[in-house]
Protein backbone atom coordinates (compact mmCIF):
# COMPACT_ATOMS: atom_id res chain seq x y z
CA UNK A 1 0.00 0.00 0.00
CA UNK A 2 2.73 2.44 1.06
CA UNK A 3 4.72 1.49 -2.05
CA UNK A 4 1.72 2.42 -4.15
CA UNK A 5 1.40 5.80 -2.40
CA UNK A 6 5.11 6.46 -2.86
CA UNK A 7 4.87 5.59 -6.54
CA UNK A 8 1.87 7.90 -7.00
CA UNK A 9 3.77 10.72 -5.28
CA UNK A 10 6.81 10.18 -7.49
CA UNK A 11 4.63 10.08 -10.59
CA UNK A 12 2.94 13.32 -9.58
CA UNK A 13 6.32 14.95 -8.95
CA UNK A 14 7.57 13.78 -12.34
CA UNK A 15 4.43 15.04 -14.04
CA UNK A 16 4.90 18.40 -12.32
CA UNK A 17 8.53 18.60 -13.48
CA UNK A 18 7.56 17.78 -17.06
CA UNK A 19 4.78 20.32 -16.87
CA UNK A 20 7.15 22.99 -15.59
CA UNK A 21 9.68 22.29 -18.34
CA UNK A 22 7.07 22.19 -21.08
CA UNK A 23 5.09 25.23 -19.92
CA UNK A 24 7.51 27.86 -18.65
CA UNK A 25 4.86 30.58 -19.12
CA UNK A 26 2.40 28.69 -16.97
CA UNK A 27 5.11 28.18 -14.39
CA UNK A 28 5.76 31.92 -14.40
CA UNK A 29 2.05 32.56 -13.93
CA UNK A 30 1.97 30.16 -10.99
CA UNK A 31 4.92 31.97 -9.49
CA UNK A 32 3.08 35.29 -9.84
CA UNK A 33 -0.03 33.84 -8.24
CA UNK A 34 2.08 32.56 -5.34
CA UNK A 35 3.62 36.01 -4.90
CA UNK A 36 0.18 37.66 -4.99
CA UNK A 37 -1.05 35.27 -2.35
CA UNK A 38 2.02 35.86 -0.19
CA UNK A 39 1.56 39.63 -0.43
CA UNK A 40 -2.11 39.49 0.54
CA UNK A 41 -1.25 37.23 3.48
CA UNK A 42 1.49 39.64 4.55
CA UNK A 43 -0.91 42.56 4.30
CA UNK A 44 -3.44 40.78 6.43
CA UNK A 45 -0.76 40.39 9.13
CA UNK A 46 -0.01 36.67 8.73
CA UNK A 47 3.20 35.89 10.64
CA UNK A 48 3.64 32.57 8.86
CA UNK A 49 3.74 34.48 5.56
CA UNK A 50 6.45 36.71 7.03
CA UNK A 51 8.48 33.61 7.91
CA UNK A 52 7.99 32.31 4.35
CA UNK A 53 9.25 35.60 2.99
CA UNK A 54 12.38 35.29 5.13
CA UNK A 55 12.97 31.70 3.94
CA UNK A 56 12.58 32.73 0.30
CA UNK A 57 14.75 35.82 0.33
CA UNK A 58 17.23 35.95 3.22
CA UNK A 59 20.01 34.24 1.24
CA UNK A 60 19.48 36.48 -1.80
CA UNK A 61 19.49 39.62 0.33
CA UNK A 62 22.60 38.56 2.26
CA UNK A 63 24.46 37.82 -0.97
CA UNK A 64 23.27 41.10 -2.47
CA UNK A 65 24.85 42.94 0.45
CA UNK A 66 28.07 40.94 0.12
CA UNK A 67 28.21 41.56 -3.63
CA UNK A 68 27.71 45.28 -3.04
CA UNK A 69 30.89 45.15 -0.99
CA UNK A 70 29.81 44.82 2.64
CA UNK A 71 31.76 42.45 4.87
CA UNK A 72 30.26 39.33 6.54
CA UNK A 73 29.19 41.05 9.74
CA UNK A 74 27.77 44.15 8.06
CA UNK A 75 25.89 41.98 5.56
CA UNK A 76 24.29 39.97 8.35
CA UNK A 77 23.36 43.11 10.27
CA UNK A 78 21.97 44.72 7.14
CA UNK A 79 19.95 41.62 6.24
CA UNK A 80 18.29 41.77 9.66
CA UNK A 81 17.72 45.52 9.34
CA UNK A 82 16.21 45.12 5.87
CA UNK A 83 13.65 42.60 7.05
CA UNK A 84 12.89 44.76 10.08
CA UNK A 85 12.16 47.66 7.72
CA UNK A 86 10.07 45.32 5.59
CA UNK A 87 7.78 44.53 8.53
CA UNK A 88 7.36 48.23 9.24
CA UNK A 89 6.53 49.06 5.63
CA UNK A 90 4.24 46.18 4.85
CA UNK A 91 1.36 48.63 4.38
CA UNK A 92 3.14 50.23 1.41
CA UNK A 93 3.23 46.93 -0.46
CA UNK A 94 0.55 46.88 -3.13
CA UNK A 95 1.40 44.74 -6.10
CA UNK A 96 2.34 41.10 -5.67
CA UNK A 97 4.48 41.12 -8.78
CA UNK A 98 6.60 43.90 -7.31
CA UNK A 99 7.42 42.05 -4.08
CA UNK A 100 10.92 41.06 -5.14
CA UNK A 101 11.94 44.46 -6.49
CA UNK A 102 10.30 46.16 -3.51
CA UNK A 103 12.44 44.08 -1.14
CA UNK A 104 15.56 44.77 -3.20
CA UNK A 105 14.76 48.47 -3.15
CA UNK A 106 14.62 48.49 0.64
CA UNK A 107 17.90 46.56 0.62
CA UNK A 108 19.55 49.05 -1.76
CA UNK A 109 18.46 51.98 0.41
CA UNK A 110 19.72 50.29 3.55
CA UNK A 111 23.08 49.66 1.90
CA UNK A 112 23.34 53.27 0.72
CA UNK A 113 22.51 54.55 4.20
CA UNK A 114 25.17 52.25 5.64
CA UNK A 115 27.83 53.70 3.35
CA UNK A 116 26.67 57.21 4.20
CA UNK A 117 26.85 56.49 7.93
CA UNK A 118 30.29 54.97 7.54
CA UNK A 119 31.76 57.61 5.27
CA UNK A 120 35.52 57.58 5.10
CA UNK A 121 35.74 53.86 5.73
CA UNK A 122 36.97 51.65 2.94
CA UNK A 123 34.13 51.34 0.45
CA UNK A 124 34.75 47.72 -0.41
CA UNK A 125 35.42 45.08 2.19
CA UNK A 126 38.74 43.30 2.33
CA UNK A 127 36.92 40.07 3.00
CA UNK A 128 36.58 38.26 -0.28
CA UNK A 129 34.15 35.48 -1.01
CA UNK A 130 34.87 31.98 0.17
CA UNK A 131 35.99 30.73 -3.23
CA UNK A 132 36.06 26.91 -3.51
CA UNK A 133 39.48 25.48 -2.63
CA UNK A 134 39.84 23.61 -5.91
CA UNK A 135 39.83 26.83 -7.88
CA UNK A 136 42.44 28.63 -5.75
CA UNK A 137 44.82 25.80 -4.83
CA UNK A 138 45.82 25.20 -8.39
CA UNK A 139 48.90 27.32 -9.10
CA UNK A 140 48.21 27.35 -12.83
CA UNK A 141 45.11 29.42 -12.86
CA UNK A 142 43.20 29.25 -16.07
CA UNK A 143 42.87 32.38 -18.12
CA UNK A 144 39.17 32.43 -17.34
CA UNK A 145 39.79 32.41 -13.62
CA UNK A 146 42.29 35.22 -13.84
CA UNK A 147 39.79 37.23 -15.81
CA UNK A 148 37.10 36.47 -13.27
CA UNK A 149 39.36 37.74 -10.51
CA UNK A 150 40.09 40.90 -12.46
CA UNK A 151 36.40 41.34 -13.17
CA UNK A 152 35.51 41.00 -9.50
CA UNK A 153 38.04 43.68 -8.63
CA UNK A 154 36.85 45.90 -11.46
CA UNK A 155 33.23 45.65 -10.25
CA UNK A 156 34.39 46.63 -6.78
CA UNK A 157 36.00 49.76 -8.28
CA UNK A 158 32.82 50.85 -10.08
CA UNK A 159 30.88 53.84 -8.75
CA UNK A 160 28.04 52.77 -6.48
CA UNK A 161 25.13 53.18 -8.91
CA UNK A 162 26.90 51.32 -11.72
CA UNK A 163 28.00 48.57 -9.35
CA UNK A 164 24.44 48.19 -8.13
CA UNK A 165 23.18 47.89 -11.72
CA UNK A 166 25.69 45.14 -12.57
CA UNK A 167 25.06 43.26 -9.33
CA UNK A 168 21.28 43.41 -9.66
CA UNK A 169 21.11 42.24 -13.25
CA UNK A 170 24.03 39.87 -13.70
CA UNK A 171 24.77 38.57 -10.21
CA UNK A 172 21.32 38.60 -8.60
CA UNK A 173 19.72 37.60 -11.92
CA UNK A 174 16.93 40.17 -11.81
CA UNK A 175 15.29 41.07 -15.11
CA UNK A 176 15.87 44.58 -16.45
CA UNK A 177 12.38 45.63 -15.31
CA UNK A 178 12.82 44.16 -11.82
CA UNK A 179 16.32 45.59 -11.49
CA UNK A 180 15.16 49.04 -12.61
CA UNK A 181 12.37 48.98 -10.04
CA UNK A 182 14.81 47.82 -7.39
CA UNK A 183 17.19 50.66 -8.25
CA UNK A 184 14.27 53.11 -8.21
CA UNK A 185 14.81 54.35 -11.76
CA UNK A 186 13.07 54.01 -15.11
CA UNK A 187 13.83 51.10 -17.40
CA UNK A 188 15.67 53.33 -19.90
CA UNK A 189 17.78 54.96 -17.22
CA UNK A 190 18.72 51.59 -15.82
CA UNK A 191 19.66 50.26 -19.26
CA UNK A 192 21.93 53.19 -19.99
CA UNK A 193 23.48 52.91 -16.51
CA UNK A 194 24.13 49.24 -17.13
CA UNK A 195 25.65 49.80 -20.56
CA UNK A 196 27.94 52.52 -19.15
CA UNK A 197 29.02 50.10 -16.43
CA UNK A 198 29.75 47.38 -19.00
CA UNK A 199 31.79 49.83 -21.05
CA UNK A 200 33.89 50.75 -18.01
CA UNK A 201 34.38 47.07 -17.17
CA UNK A 202 35.40 46.22 -20.75
CA UNK A 203 37.99 48.97 -20.74
CA UNK A 204 39.19 48.01 -17.28
CA UNK A 205 39.90 44.33 -17.89
CA UNK A 206 41.42 44.31 -21.36
Amino acid sequence: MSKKVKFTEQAAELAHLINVQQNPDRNHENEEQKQDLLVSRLRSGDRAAAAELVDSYYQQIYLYMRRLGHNHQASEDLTQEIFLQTWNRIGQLQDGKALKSWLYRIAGNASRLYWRRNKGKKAISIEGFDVPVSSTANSDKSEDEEQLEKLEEAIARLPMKMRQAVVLHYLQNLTIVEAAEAAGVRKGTFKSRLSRALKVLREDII
Partner: protein
Amino acid sequence: MEKEKLEKLLNKLSERMTESVRPGLTEDVKRQIPQQLRAHRMGMNTIRIMIDLRVSRLAAAAVIIITIILGANFFGPKGSTGGDIVEAIEYSLARENIGRSDMLTNMAVIYEGLLKEGKDIVYYGDSTNRGDGFTMLMHWKLPNGKYRVIFSDLRITTVSPDMLIMLQAQMLQDKTKK
Protein backbone atom coordinates in the same frame (compact mmCIF):
# COMPACT_ATOMS: atom_id res chain seq x y z
CA MET B 1 36.97 42.71 -24.52
CA GLU B 2 33.85 41.85 -26.46
CA LYS B 3 30.48 42.47 -24.88
CA GLU B 4 29.36 38.87 -25.28
CA LYS B 5 32.47 37.53 -23.55
CA LEU B 6 32.08 40.02 -20.73
CA GLU B 7 28.45 39.00 -20.21
CA LYS B 8 29.49 35.33 -20.18
CA LEU B 9 32.12 36.10 -17.55
CA LEU B 10 29.61 38.05 -15.49
CA ASN B 11 27.26 35.08 -15.50
CA LYS B 12 30.11 32.86 -14.34
CA LEU B 13 30.99 35.39 -11.68
CA SER B 14 27.62 34.96 -9.98
CA GLU B 15 28.64 31.37 -9.20
CA ARG B 16 32.02 32.51 -7.94
CA MET B 17 30.80 35.44 -5.83
CA THR B 18 28.71 33.28 -3.56
CA GLU B 19 29.03 31.75 -0.14
CA SER B 20 26.95 29.90 2.37
CA VAL B 21 25.01 31.94 4.85
CA ARG B 22 25.41 31.42 8.58
CA PRO B 23 22.75 28.83 9.50
CA GLY B 24 21.44 30.85 12.46
CA LEU B 25 20.77 33.98 10.41
CA THR B 26 17.33 32.94 9.22
CA GLU B 27 16.25 32.25 12.81
CA ASP B 28 17.68 35.58 13.95
CA VAL B 29 15.63 37.35 11.29
CA LYS B 30 12.47 35.39 12.05
CA ARG B 31 12.76 36.21 15.75
CA GLN B 32 12.32 39.87 14.82
CA ILE B 33 8.97 39.34 13.14
CA PRO B 34 6.56 41.40 15.25
CA GLN B 35 3.66 39.67 16.99
CA GLN B 36 1.24 41.81 15.03
CA LEU B 37 2.19 42.78 11.51
CA ARG B 38 0.47 46.09 10.87
CA ALA B 39 -0.73 46.70 7.36
CA HIS B 40 -1.23 50.45 7.68
CA ARG B 41 0.39 53.19 9.65
CA MET B 42 -1.45 56.15 8.29
CA GLY B 43 0.06 58.92 10.38
CA MET B 44 3.68 57.94 9.87
CA ASN B 45 3.09 57.17 6.20
CA THR B 46 1.59 60.61 5.61
CA ILE B 47 4.55 62.29 7.26
CA ARG B 48 7.00 60.08 5.32
CA ILE B 49 5.28 60.96 2.03
CA MET B 50 5.54 64.65 2.85
CA ILE B 51 9.21 64.30 3.74
CA ASP B 52 9.74 62.38 0.49
CA LEU B 53 8.09 65.24 -1.37
CA ARG B 54 10.80 67.50 0.09
CA VAL B 55 8.22 69.61 1.96
CA SER B 56 9.81 71.39 4.90
CA ARG B 57 8.88 69.68 8.16
CA LEU B 58 7.41 72.86 9.62
CA ALA B 59 5.27 73.47 6.55
CA ALA B 60 4.21 69.81 6.61
CA ALA B 61 3.27 70.10 10.29
CA ALA B 62 1.32 73.30 9.57
CA VAL B 63 -0.59 71.68 6.72
CA ILE B 64 -1.42 68.61 8.85
CA ILE B 65 -2.66 70.73 11.79
CA ILE B 66 -4.74 73.01 9.57
CA THR B 67 -6.23 70.01 7.73
CA ILE B 68 -7.17 68.39 11.03
CA ILE B 69 -8.71 71.61 12.34
CA LEU B 70 -10.64 72.28 9.14
CA GLY B 71 -11.77 68.67 8.95
CA ALA B 72 -12.94 68.74 12.56
CA ASN B 73 -14.81 71.99 11.95
CA PHE B 74 -16.31 70.83 8.70
CA PHE B 75 -17.73 67.63 10.18
CA GLY B 76 -18.25 69.04 13.69
CA PRO B 77 -21.23 70.92 15.14
CA LYS B 78 -22.30 74.02 13.23
CA GLY B 79 -23.03 77.44 14.60
CA SER B 80 -19.80 78.14 16.45
CA THR B 81 -18.35 81.61 16.39
CA GLY B 82 -15.51 80.62 14.16
CA GLY B 83 -13.15 81.52 16.94
CA ASP B 84 -12.38 77.80 17.44
CA ILE B 85 -10.36 77.63 14.25
CA VAL B 86 -8.48 80.79 15.02
CA GLU B 87 -7.82 79.83 18.63
CA ALA B 88 -6.55 76.47 17.49
CA ILE B 89 -4.26 78.22 15.03
CA GLU B 90 -3.04 80.55 17.78
CA TYR B 91 -2.43 77.56 20.00
CA SER B 92 -0.51 75.70 17.32
CA LEU B 93 1.56 78.80 16.62
CA ALA B 94 2.54 79.01 20.26
CA ARG B 95 2.98 75.31 21.00
CA GLU B 96 4.26 73.76 17.79
CA ASN B 97 6.61 76.62 16.93
CA ILE B 98 5.28 76.81 13.38
CA GLY B 99 6.72 79.66 11.36
CA ARG B 100 4.37 82.58 10.85
CA SER B 101 5.27 82.66 7.18
CA ASP B 102 4.02 79.05 6.91
CA MET B 103 0.77 80.05 8.56
CA LEU B 104 0.37 83.13 6.35
CA THR B 105 0.78 81.10 3.21
CA ASN B 106 -2.04 78.89 4.44
CA MET B 107 -4.35 81.82 5.27
CA ALA B 108 -6.34 81.29 2.08
CA VAL B 109 -7.09 77.72 3.22
CA ILE B 110 -8.28 79.04 6.60
CA TYR B 111 -10.48 81.58 4.79
CA GLU B 112 -12.07 78.83 2.71
CA GLY B 113 -12.70 76.78 5.86
CA LEU B 114 -14.45 79.67 7.57
CA LEU B 115 -16.44 80.38 4.42
CA LYS B 116 -17.62 76.77 4.37
CA GLU B 117 -18.75 77.19 7.96
CA GLY B 118 -21.10 79.87 6.66
CA LYS B 119 -19.25 82.84 8.13
CA ASP B 120 -19.91 86.26 6.61
CA ILE B 121 -16.21 86.74 6.13
CA VAL B 122 -14.15 89.43 4.40
CA TYR B 123 -10.65 88.46 3.28
CA TYR B 124 -8.29 91.20 2.17
CA GLY B 125 -6.00 88.73 0.45
CA ASP B 126 -2.40 88.99 -0.59
CA SER B 127 -2.58 92.73 -1.24
CA THR B 128 -2.27 93.50 2.46
CA ASN B 129 0.96 94.76 3.92
CA ARG B 130 2.01 91.71 5.88
CA GLY B 131 3.64 92.22 9.24
CA ASP B 132 1.87 95.54 9.87
CA GLY B 133 -0.07 95.31 13.12
CA PHE B 134 -2.95 97.55 11.91
CA THR B 135 -3.57 95.93 8.56
CA MET B 136 -6.39 93.41 8.57
CA LEU B 137 -6.08 90.07 6.86
CA MET B 138 -9.70 89.09 7.37
CA HIS B 139 -12.71 89.71 9.60
CA TRP B 140 -16.15 88.26 10.20
CA LYS B 141 -19.23 89.24 12.15
CA LEU B 142 -20.04 87.65 15.53
CA PRO B 143 -23.61 86.94 16.73
CA ASN B 144 -23.31 89.80 19.29
CA GLY B 145 -22.80 92.37 16.50
CA LYS B 146 -19.05 92.77 17.05
CA TYR B 147 -16.35 91.67 14.64
CA ARG B 148 -13.51 89.17 14.98
CA VAL B 149 -10.39 90.40 13.18
CA ILE B 150 -7.15 88.68 12.17
CA PHE B 151 -4.39 91.23 11.59
CA SER B 152 -1.48 90.68 9.27
CA ASP B 153 0.85 90.09 12.22
CA LEU B 154 -1.54 87.22 13.11
CA ARG B 155 -2.94 89.00 16.16
CA ILE B 156 -6.58 88.06 16.68
CA THR B 157 -9.01 90.34 18.43
CA THR B 158 -12.68 91.32 18.71
CA VAL B 159 -13.56 94.89 17.75
CA SER B 160 -16.71 97.02 17.74
CA PRO B 161 -18.34 98.04 14.41
CA ASP B 162 -17.03 101.63 14.88
CA MET B 163 -13.51 100.37 15.42
CA LEU B 164 -13.79 98.20 12.34
CA ILE B 165 -14.80 101.22 10.24
CA MET B 166 -11.81 103.13 11.60
CA LEU B 167 -9.47 100.29 10.74
CA GLN B 168 -10.91 100.05 7.23
CA ALA B 169 -10.54 103.81 6.80
CA GLN B 170 -6.93 103.59 7.95
CA MET B 171 -6.22 100.83 5.45
CA LEU B 172 -7.85 102.85 2.68
CA GLN B 173 -5.78 105.89 3.60
CA ASP B 174 -2.57 103.83 3.55
CA LYS B 175 -3.48 102.48 0.15
CA THR B 176 -4.18 105.91 -1.38
CA LYS B 177 -0.89 107.25 0.04
CA LYS B 178 0.97 104.53 -1.85
